[in-house]
């Protein structure tokens, strides 16, 4: 077969992913030659920036379309999610360097695996075929399982990795079951063709399709930690290295939302009434369980795990409303959430030093007296996660809830606002501990250039978007058009 234009176009359109994978392979080799892990991390960052540059170049050329026999689609919806993945990968690498040295887990494969996971997420966001979607998901998931267990000397890291792997394998099996049922009914795995064949074969009332739909919700719900598929999240988030917890709570979650949107709007768009009913129930459960259980937590990593569960409950409102405003509100929400959540974890990492985990609430007592700047930055993230103006978190929630109200989901928005208020309790408790209590002892901060850079970026974006909210939203709005 000759290398014709369609194949060349295909290779051009997947070049951002190819660059990431090649950089990952290169890092594996570099790790053997170079002892300094910072150099490996730096090479990884260069690869990511190269990939971003190529991605922007492709977008500016106006290239788009289905390639590889309709399996891969390069569109603005996917590109927006890829932006989130890039930011997640860059910030994760920045906050990892010092932390891994302290935890004695600094190995070069770490950075390669982050790149592979990012490439997997990008394939998910761009998949227009269920097979590519599944393989992208598996690439992302396998890399994150390994990253979760990468601190081999620590028993809780091992435990988290095994739990995550076992439950993740189940969710993959359920996803495959859903895919096979859909394939059996429609005779295709292509997301667009599924939609047309559902109409053509008059399958919309088929109970088997409904079962397939439920399997999809279960599998994707596992990835974004919707209640009742959230059981793994607190344990895994607590046991994983903090930098990977930051990565997991943002990247794979956003990827889960990307495929949620892609599959449910494009393939099952005509079944909106059926799946939105299920999702509304799950969303309310998620917000409730996430917020209420977070109150009891004294370990900050666990608290942020529950908080990340409840945030998934808010963000799913965008999928439920299924309007362009709703989806752009959700994408905007996820992008802002990326900054504020990784920022909060970066503060946690800063308090982590030799022998001190810096994860317990009591570690934060009187932090404002000893380290005013660090506590102020934490204050910004906690306000933003609660949704207090003028931080970005408020704007994210505001646009999302407005869009949901416009789409006619007033009651569930009221529930969401109530649980936002509940969530204020545990976010502001951290602030209270920092500012109202007397310091117990000297807390050493382990700062480093890259960690500071990550903190500056996340804090600045969280504040700036709160003041100039329309920047991200405009990009998000422009990105929904393709869907």
């Amino acid at each position, binding site marked *: *077969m000759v290398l014709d234009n369609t194949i060349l176009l*295909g290779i051009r359109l*997947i070049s951002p992913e190819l660059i990431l*994978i090649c950089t990952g392979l290169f890092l*594996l080799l570099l790790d053997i030659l170079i002892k300094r892990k910072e150099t490996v991390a730096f090479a990884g960052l260069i690869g990511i920036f190269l990939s971003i540059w190529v991605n922007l170049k492709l977008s500016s050329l106006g290239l788009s379309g289905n390639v*590889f*026999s309709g*399996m*891969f689609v390069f569109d603005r919806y996917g590109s927006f999610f890829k932006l989130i993945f890039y930011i997640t990968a860059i910030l994760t690498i920045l906050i990892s360097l010092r932390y891994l040295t302290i935890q*004695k887990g600094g*190995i070069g*494969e770490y950075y*390669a*695996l982050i790149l*592979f996971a990012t*490439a997997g997420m990008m*394939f998910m966001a761009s998949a227009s*075929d269920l*097979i*590519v979607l599944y*393989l*992208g998901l*598996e*690439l992302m998931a*396998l*890399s994150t*399982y*390994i990253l979760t*267990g*990468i601190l*081999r*000397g620590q028993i809780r890291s091992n435990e988290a*990795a095994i739990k995550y792997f076992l439950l993740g394998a189940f969710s993959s099996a359920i996803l495959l079951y859903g895919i096979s049922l859909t394939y*059996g*009914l*429609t*005779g*295709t795995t292509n997301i667009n063709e599924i939609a047309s*064949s559902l109409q053509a*074969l*008059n*399958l919309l009332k*088929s*109970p*088997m399709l409904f*079962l397939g739909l439920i399997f999809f919700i279960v599998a994707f719900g596992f990835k974004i930690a919707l209640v009742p598929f959230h059981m793994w999240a607190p344990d895994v988030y607590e046991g994983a290295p903090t930098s990977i917890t930051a990565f997991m709570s943002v990247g794979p979650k956003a990827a889960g939302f990307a495929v949620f949107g892609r599959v449910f709007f494009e393939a099952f768009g005509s079944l909106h009434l059926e799946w939105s009913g299920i999702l509304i129930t799950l969303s309310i459960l998620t917000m409730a369980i996430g917020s209420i259980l977070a109150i009891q937590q004294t370990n900050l990593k666990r608290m942020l795990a529950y908080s990340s569960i409840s945030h998934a409950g808010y963000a799913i409102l965008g999928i439920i409303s299924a309007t362009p405003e709703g989806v752009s509100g959700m994408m905007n929400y996820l992008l802002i959430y990326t900054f504020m959540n990784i920022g909060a974890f970066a503060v946690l990492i800063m308090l982590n030093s030799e022998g001190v985990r810096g994860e317990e609430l009591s570690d934060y007592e009187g932090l404002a007296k000893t380290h005013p700047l660090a506590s102020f930055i934490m204050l910004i993230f906690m306000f933003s996660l609660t949704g207090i103006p003028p931080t970005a978190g408020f704007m994210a929630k505001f646009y999302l809830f407005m869009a949901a109200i416009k789409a006619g989901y007033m009651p569930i928005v009221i529930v969401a606002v109530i649980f936002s208020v509940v969530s204020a309790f545990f976010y502001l408790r951290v602030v209270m501990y920092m500012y109202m209590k007397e310091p117990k002892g000297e807390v050493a901060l382990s700062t480093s250039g890259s960690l500071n850079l990550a903190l500056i970026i996340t804090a600045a974006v969280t504040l700036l978007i709160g003041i100039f909210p329309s920047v991200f939203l405009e990009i998000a709005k422009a990105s929904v058009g393709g869907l």
Partner: protein
Amino acid sequence: MLPQIFFAYFAVVITVLSILVITRKNPVHSVIWMLVLFVHIAALYIFLNAEFLAAIQIIVYAGAILVLFLFVIMLLNLKKEEQERKFHGYWPLGVLAGTFFIVFFILILSKISVFPKLGPYSIQAIQSEGSIMTIGKVLYTDYILPFEIASIVLLVAIIGAVVLAKKRIE
């Protein structure tokens, strides 16, 4: 009539074998029953005119994966394993969920009336080229992207095995 009899035989035997796999006390017995199970599943593939898949099923599953299972079992303490109870407190819940799903599936499957349009690879088309050639052609043209992503997935799995199992890093 003959196909139905064959299918009924394989369906019943596969179900019985699956139950045997999970109820044996000795893990080695479980693995041997699984071997027989895999051979029967391979027979089902032949039934569907997919002789290549049947061969792969035997080579990969019965050949490679089961050997791995046996290796892992060799590392376990079988004496202790045999004394422990096979089913823990949750099994009535499992039976309940299982029964629910069986009923659910029977209800759903009995309602199916539409069948999807068939693809271009009919039995005649496959037989004229041979099933290996057909799969190879599809895999390297239409499905080249998933095929390549799968290779990266396998690479990551190997990296994981090395990273998690290599000697302690100082």
